[in-house]
């Protein structure tokens, strides 16, 4: 029987745009992820405040800033990643996506990009706030704007690995704890490199060599892990 | 003991407990795993025994064959739901 509808399978890039558009429109309408992550990061800063304000002047906050910043980013993104797949599972929308004749790794790419964007937006809010709260008096070296690069490279890695793991943990019991249990050990090397890059840029001195090696290592981690996630994603989502 | 000799051996005594502890813990971990493996094996063997005597009991009281008959019945029944 003649088909009343002509169908031309769209290119992968169009599928990617459609799925990304869906996530962004949905977030733009509900703003559920951004508000929860934004507020959560401010709460973490409050906890830092309690921790650091009591310390004597001897404690050099600047030295710890790289680490504290990344701790804030890791835990905030954990919260966001957990919720990223919740609404997909609500009405079985994931089955709906699986029914569409397309390469399923596109779902990974679209979801990783949307997570990345949300995490970057939250960082744009949280990092300046961190400077405002803790580094007003500190002798921050003038190379601090270079902090942007480790932030970007690190967030890309976390978004990629996080999306893959959240696809796994959304179907397990104890979802959010499970994501943290799997995510943090896996992301440790990236974290280690990014913290070192961030610290050395904030503290100053001859930061070039350390900064560049750490950034290169973090970049290498991203490439390997994102490729691996892209390849393995098909097995995870259709399990 | 001449002082130099003393220095040469200076590290041996204090480090002894750590070396002993290291090896003890290593062999201990292996031992725990071996015990775990035997416990699992014993569990399987006991289940085999339990299954064994249910099987022997079963063959004597023919519960198995009732099941076969029941499913056979279902098979012929599927023909009978059609119009005679």
């Amino acid at each position, binding site marked *: 029987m003649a088909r009343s509808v002509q169908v031309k399978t769209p290119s992968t890039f169009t599928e990617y745009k459609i799925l990304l558009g869906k996530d962004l429109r949905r977030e733009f309408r509900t703003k559920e992820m951004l508000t929860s992550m934004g507020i959560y990061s401010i709460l973490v800063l409050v906890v830092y405040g309690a921790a650091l304000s009591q310390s004597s002047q001897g404690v050099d906050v600047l030295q710890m800033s790289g680490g504290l910043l990344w701790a804030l980013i890791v835990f905030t993104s954990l919260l966001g990643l957990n919720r990223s797949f919740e609404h997909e599972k609500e009405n079985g929308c994931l089955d709906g996506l699986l029914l569409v004749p397309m390469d399923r790794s596109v779902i990974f790419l679209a979801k990783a990009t949307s997570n990345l964007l949300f995490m970057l937006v939250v960082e744009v809010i949280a990092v300046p706030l961190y400077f405002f709260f803790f580094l007003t008096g500190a002798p921050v070296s003038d190379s601090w704007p270079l902090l942007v690069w480790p932030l970007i490279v690190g967030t890309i890695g976390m978004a990629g690995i996080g999306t893959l793991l959240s696809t796994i943990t959304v179907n397990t019991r104890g979802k959010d704890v499970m994501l943290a249990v799997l995510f943090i*050990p896996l992301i440790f090397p990236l974290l280690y490199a990014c913290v070192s890059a961030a610290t050395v840029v904030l503290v100053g001195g001859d930061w070039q060599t350390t900064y560049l090696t750490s950034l290169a290592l973090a970049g290498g981690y991203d490439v390997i892990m994102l490729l691996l996630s892209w390849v393995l994603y098909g097995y995870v989502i259709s399990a | 003991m001449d002082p130099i000799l003393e220095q*040469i051996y200076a590290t041996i005594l204090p480090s002894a407990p750590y070396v002993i502890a290291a090896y003890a813990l290593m062999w201990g971990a292996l031992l725990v795993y071996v015990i775990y493996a035997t416990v699992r094996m014993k569990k399987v063997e006991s289940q085999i025994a339990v*299954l064994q005597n249910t099987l022997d009991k079963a063959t004597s009281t023919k519960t198995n064959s009732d099941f076969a008959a029941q499913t056979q019945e279902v098979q012929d029944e599927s023909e009978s739901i059609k119009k005679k």
Partner: protein
Amino acid sequence: MAQTNKNRRGQMPSRGQTASRGQTALSTADKIAPVILVLGAILSVLGFVLAFTIAPPVNGARVDGIAIIGDQMVGNQMLFSQKIFYFHMPVAITSFLALGVAAFYEIRYLMTKDSDYDLKAHLATEVSLVFVVMVMFSGEMWERFEWGVWWTWDPRLTTYFILMLLVIGYFVLRAAVDDPEKRASYASVFGIITFIDVPICFMITRLVPSSVHPTIFRTDSGLSTEMMIPLMCAMFGMLFISYGLFRWRLRTERAQEELDRMKQTLDE
């Protein structure tokens, strides 16, 4: 067991042992497994003994003088704690090898979806966890004496701590998923990622220049022959033990699976 009905294929799954009246037909690998296990035990005990007898102590810090011991001129402290090395390295290599074997089975599972590979991967990871714990113990004791403090974020120790957390995460994940097919796929994917992540962690913790920890590549070159003998004994001993344990666990778990299948058919 009576054939239940005509179109019900009663044939047991072909791979592995076909259980006939409780006596499993042993494949050759399972026959030699106990032999290898015993051989491994002997070798490691031999390595243990040799490590403390024929292996010369490693020279520690310089001493301000020379002393004659036996027929040798000795000018350094004798580092006794180095004796842990003879088991630390073999155990470390075995743990990583076991993880590699697990990763291989996981890839095989993803390609074939045959649950037997998933079982093998699960058990290989179990063996790997045992050896990672052993590495942590020995590494901890060695660091404790050498650095004088219970924990340092030293690259080697940190890498193995992360490896242990990842392997524990593997088992936590397996426990949290009920559907066998999902559990196998998720565990396999996580196992493969772990296997790739560990060398990266190994590299990054060393290459990232950090003032606190000098990046030491413990090459341990210059092992004299007397040192090599106990090391090799311990090495092969540990490898054989790990293989023997793996096969033993595999036989047990396969029998367990057969039992579950039998109980399943009996319930119907």
